[in-house]
């Protein structure tokens, strides 16, 4: 399937948190969910439906990919599928952070003039 150019498009909160969670390394589904919750200080709670639905679309867009299937040493002995960022995914995350920085700069400038 053709990879879409999502580097310029604003990301949904779920996609942004999945990219953030994977930015430090490979994780399985539950690991991504817990990391997203921790990154947002508990404000973002994704269930499996939102998580895997978003990951399906991200895989089609080439932002993430399956890494391998192995046991998580900190959990039980079940093998889990791990996911990782692609170069396109890292570029999309960097572009989104740049966009956020731009919005924050504009907002801070306006607020400073307003006071």
């Amino acid at each position, binding site marked *: 399937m053709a990879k879409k150019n999502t580097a310029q498009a604003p990301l949904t909160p779920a996609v942004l948190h999945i990219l953030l969670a994977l930015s430090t390394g490979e994780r399985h589904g539950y690991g991504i969910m817990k990391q997203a919750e921790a990154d947002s200080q508990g404000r973002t709670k994704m269930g499996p*439906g939102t998580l*895997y639905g978003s990951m*399906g679309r991200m895989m089609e867009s080439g932002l993430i990919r399956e890494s391998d299937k192995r046991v998580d040493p900190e959990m039980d002995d079940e093998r889990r599928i791990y996911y990782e960022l692609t170069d396109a995914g890292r570029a999309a995350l960097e572009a989104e952070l740049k966009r956020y920085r731009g919005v924050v700069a504009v907002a801070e400038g306006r607020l400073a003039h307003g006071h």
Partner: protein
Amino acid sequence: MATNVAGRRYRTWYAMLLRLYPRPFRERFGEGMAQTFHDVCREHRDAGRGLFGLALWIFFETSVGIVRENTTHIVRETTHMSQLGKTTLRVALGALVVLMVPLVASQVVEGWNWPPGAFVRVYVLFFGTGMAYALIARKMGAWSYKAGVAVALVAGFALGWSTMVQTADSGHPERLWYLSVLVVGFIGACLARLKAPGLAVTLFAMAATLALIAVMLPSGAPPDMARRMAIGHGVFVVLFTTSGLMFRHASFAGCRPGR
């Protein structure tokens, strides 16, 4: 203990709920989703929290995902069907254009007197060959795969056509043996499931079968005709071998159908 029983029950119900996802999504993520649900339930249980509220929220959240994924799946299938319809229309029109050649020729060439039924059969052959190319070639983007399919279909079509015509003209039913080359091709393509490495072997097998028939089958033709038949056999063997080499190139490129 009661939480364990409830957890098992919820996991069973969740597994049943996951069956409502479209098959491709379920096959890809079903196992991971069930595992994640199990992990979340275990975390709540270990923290001494009840599972009812959690299960209710995840069941609702997953149901929303099921509706969304099924909608996406239906939209994709509809788009695919409309693309197939366009392809069919293009091939049908293309076959009609090609049919104009014998249709016009029958009007201007003396002795070319095809009955109407022959035009219908020829049109079906053109359309069938065109659709076979359109459906098989879309399986892979590699140029060598598409070229291999084109050469194999053109050579197969020409072999089948000339066999039918020569059998009808000469009254030698043993020449129908040449159709076994096409049978080898059809069986080979089915066994290979249209993958390039298998198709390469199939086309080489077709070339070998044709060469064997050409050697084994007595032509009974005068020397001049026999020489022309030998050249014809040689051309077909080269075409099938060329097609096989193209599929071999496609398989070395590491491409598989569907990519």
